[in-house]
């Protein structure tokens, strides 16, 4: 059975000693992120995000189902995470480990409960038909900071995804394929991103974007989720050593800077991709929210 990869004592002491001198193994500053690389698949909603060696693929898919009886006006949105054994020898198929539980819980809180996605816009006919959106997060390689990478991947994928256009005439619903009508982007209320602080020596040293080795020697982590307007969606701290409240305050301010920088990268990449797809410059005309000529001409 594959074993949990544990750090040796030598590495543990070295990393801590270096951090106390303000050095990181990859030569980054303590508040510097690795480069966020984003690429898109051929389909809408397939996003490949890399942060250093950490790599995650997020994929959004949708189908039409009946809504939950107690939430007649809402669509369905589920997030599912999968840790592939090729990411780390500690991951096994079919057995959830601690990281996976935390990741799915954080994404749930950060994206779903902060209502980043307007689920009401997924409703087609109240009580009988709605879109069910499913986000699959695949962890392909694990070199630390899975939460930030997964959150960035998910938010990018949601912005990239387009659902098929629908038309309702009384009780009759027509769903158009991408060839018939240009698909519709999802309606998002805001774009929250996670920033994880790993801290050492009781909060004296705080690291952003810790690598896998750095994560293994940390005393604890604080995950701050906020959008670019500085609205904090959630702050999570699962165990670990207690930290000063003032430290958390200054970290939230630092998180805002990072979230704004990351949002900029994501928007730039989304724009590039949109331009690449919009070959003849007709996307604006095809947009589903434009007025449509009425079905039958008068007279």
């Amino acid at each position, binding site marked *: 059975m*594959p*074993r*949990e*990869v*544990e*750090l*040796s*004592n*030598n*590495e*543990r*002491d*070295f*990393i801590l*000693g*270096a951090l106390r*001198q303000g*050095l990181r*193994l*990859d*030569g980054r500053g303590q508040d510097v992120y690795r480069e966020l690389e984003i690429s898109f698949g051929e389909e809408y909603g397939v996003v490949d995000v890399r942060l250093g060696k950490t790599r995650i693929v997020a994929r959004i898919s949708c189908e039409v189902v009946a809504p939950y009886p107690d939430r007649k006006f809402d669509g369905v949105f589920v997030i599912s995470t999968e840790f592939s054994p090729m990411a780390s*020898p*500690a991951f096994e198929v079919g057995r959830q480990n601690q990281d996976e539980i935390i990741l799915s819980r954080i994404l749930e809180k950060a994206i779903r409960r902060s209502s980043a996605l307007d689920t009401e816009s997924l409703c087609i006919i109240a009580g009988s038909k709605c879109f069910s959106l499913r986000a699959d997060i695949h962890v392909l390689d694990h070199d630390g900071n899975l939460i930030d990478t997964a959150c960035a991947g998910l938010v990018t994928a949601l912005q990239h995804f387009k659902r098929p256009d629908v038309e309702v005439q009384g009780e009759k619903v027509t769903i158009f394929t991408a060839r018939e009508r240009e698909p519709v982007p999802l309606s998002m209320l805001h774009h929250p991103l996670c920033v994880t602080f790993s801290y050492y020596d009781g909060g004296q040293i705080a690291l952003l974007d810790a690598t896998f080795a750095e994560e293994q020697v940390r005393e604890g982590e604080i995950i701050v989720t906020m959008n670019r307007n500085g609205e904090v969606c959630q702050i999570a701290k699962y165990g670990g050593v207690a930290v000063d409240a003032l430290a958390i305050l200054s970290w939230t301010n630092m998180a805002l800077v990072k979230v704004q920088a990351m949002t900029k990268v994501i928007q730039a990449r989304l724009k590039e991709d949109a331009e690449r797809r919009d070959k003849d410059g007709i996307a604006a005309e095809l947009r589903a929210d434009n007025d449509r000529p009425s079905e039958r001409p008068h007279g």
Partner: protein
Amino acid sequence: METTPVLPGDILPSELIPHSTNKAVKLGPGLRHIPPSTVKATISGTVTSDLRKNAIWIEYNGGRYIPTPSDLIIAQILRSAGEHYTVQITPHYPPALLPHLSFEGATKKTRPQLKPGDLIYARIAAAPKHADIELECFNSQTGKGEGLGPLKGGMCFDVSVGFAREVIKGRRGGVVVLEELSEKLGFEVAVGRNGRLWVEGGEGERSGGLKHVIAVGRCLQVCDEKGLDERGQRELVRQVLKGL
């Protein structure tokens, strides 16, 4: 030494196979003998032969480390049990055994006391297919340590298995980065064939502390990731030394 690239399934031309009258040809990793006299490649890589040893094998960079007898490796102690330590060579492989007394000059009273998580530099004594792998930290013929044993302090860096083999060969393997660095920095290294490199800052006036260890480790990892040639390696070392 000669190198030719091959693909899996390729039949090796007979001029590549060393012909010696007094010694049998030894086939190494990635080759398969199909009687009477065909040799086929089972993996893509470069054919490498050693005429002196009358051996031929395929050199490739990829895959996990497979323990082979007499390889030097850097392993991690998991726990001590009875007469031996249980040791992890790679996370993908079942743990190996290191007897308490297979250290230089070790008796029941003087043997090194290792804690879980300590690193050791060891040789693989035996790697049977259906039993536990055995390690040793001394030469069982002479009783000398030969540099093997517990590794104190320093830092361990992970590299690919192929690169670790090249570092062991040094200049012949096309790796000059350590020689170049050692002209300016003082450090100690141990290379494990399981793809781990241990670097220590050394002592005395040339020791630059943790900064130099990180620089050496980064150089090695960058060389591995980018597959730099000798010129690239020299350039990299020059840049790194400038930054210190």
